[in-house]
């Protein structure tokens, strides 16, 4: 498992190095490879979050699909917030509710929580094992299953395919 972890970290660091430099001279690449290798060897033993990545064609496809779903939700959320802010009476109905997730991997849970924070009227306040506490601008339902269906599911069903 360790090899996979270090490889994933190495690839991520190398692509960041290339994006930073934005040029493909041979010296720059050599330095980048050496640096990413050293950093991923040093940090790789401690950082195990990359273990959960699946290297397959399907996961790449679902990542891109996820990005599209996420961006659409992001725009929707902003229009929602903008509408609420601009209405003079300030139509809000806030509260903190519970939802459940089936994701086990830490990475997947972080991405899920971040997505929830950035989407319509919801903000992750706390996470305890598989319970997510979410602050809503407009509380739909206090029941845990209904809330899960309304808020979490649309992201989760894609993330399950990527992170298992």
């Amino acid at each position, binding site marked *: 498992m360790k090899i996979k972890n270090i490889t994933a970290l190495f690839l991520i660091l190398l692509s960041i190095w290339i994006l930073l*430099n934005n040029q493909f001279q041979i010296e720059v690449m050599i330095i980048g490879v050496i640096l990413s290798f050293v*950093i991923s060897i040093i940090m790789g033993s401690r950082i195990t979050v990359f273990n959960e990545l699946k290297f397959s064609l399907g996961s790449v496809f679902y990542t891109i699909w996820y990005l599209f779903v996420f961006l659409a939700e992001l725009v929707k959320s902003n229009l929602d917030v903008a509408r609420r802010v601009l209405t003079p009476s300030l139509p809000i109905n806030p509260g903190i509710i519970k939802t459940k997730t089936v994701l086990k991997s*830490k*990475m997947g849970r972080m991405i899920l*929580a971040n997505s929830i924070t950035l989407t319509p009227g919801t903000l*992750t306040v706390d996470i305890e094992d598989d319970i997510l506490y979410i602050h809503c601008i407009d509380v739909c339902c206090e029941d845990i299953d209904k809330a899960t269906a309304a808020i979490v599911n649309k992201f989760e069903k894609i993330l399950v395919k990527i992170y298992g």
Partner: protein
Amino acid sequence: MVKNSLIFIVLIGFAVLLADLFVGFNGNTDLNTLANHYAVSGPEEVGSANLVTAVVVTYRGLDTLGEVTILFLAAAIVSFLLKVEAGASRNRKLRSTSEILDTASKILVPVIFLFGIYVFINGHLSPGGGFQGGAIIASGLVLMLLAQPAKEVGHKLITLVESISGISFVLIGVAGVLFAAGFLDNKLLSLGKFGTIFSAGVIPVIYIFVGLKVGAELSGIITNLQENQNEA
């Protein structure tokens, strides 16, 4: 009353001092002679695209050595003052870290380290250099400590990195005296093609050592100020 008027007088005094600066100043339209020399002949003499780096590392290299020494002294005094007597361990009740912050820090810390190293390797091409890179690396350490506050950071490693990079910095300077024109002269290595990563002679090497040294010193200050890092 007397105190207030004294404060008032001091403020007025400073205002007058600084206003003097302000009245005579109308904005520059041209560089002065020294700056003009640095700007015009800097690229050929030093080979560094970033003129600030040229000034910091070569033209005023000795000042940089002094400044790194001052920083070292500050870090040493901080660690000396905060040393606690052995056996004074208090058990602290900490609020646990949120899992999201923990995961995010694990992703971001290697990225921050890589970016810090990018900043000081590219010090002669883009803004940045040893001081900024060191600060960024120390910030990565801070993120690590924020996510896992109970973690102990190896003081020995920090001290080791600091001493090795400091000694190497001075040795490069001395090598400049022996093999080239003077202390910290950058023609120790060939200048290379202007604008590429292997250019500007010895500047990238010096900046790597300065970056490691500054990063280690700032990390030392931070780990000393953090609550549970005070082993004797």
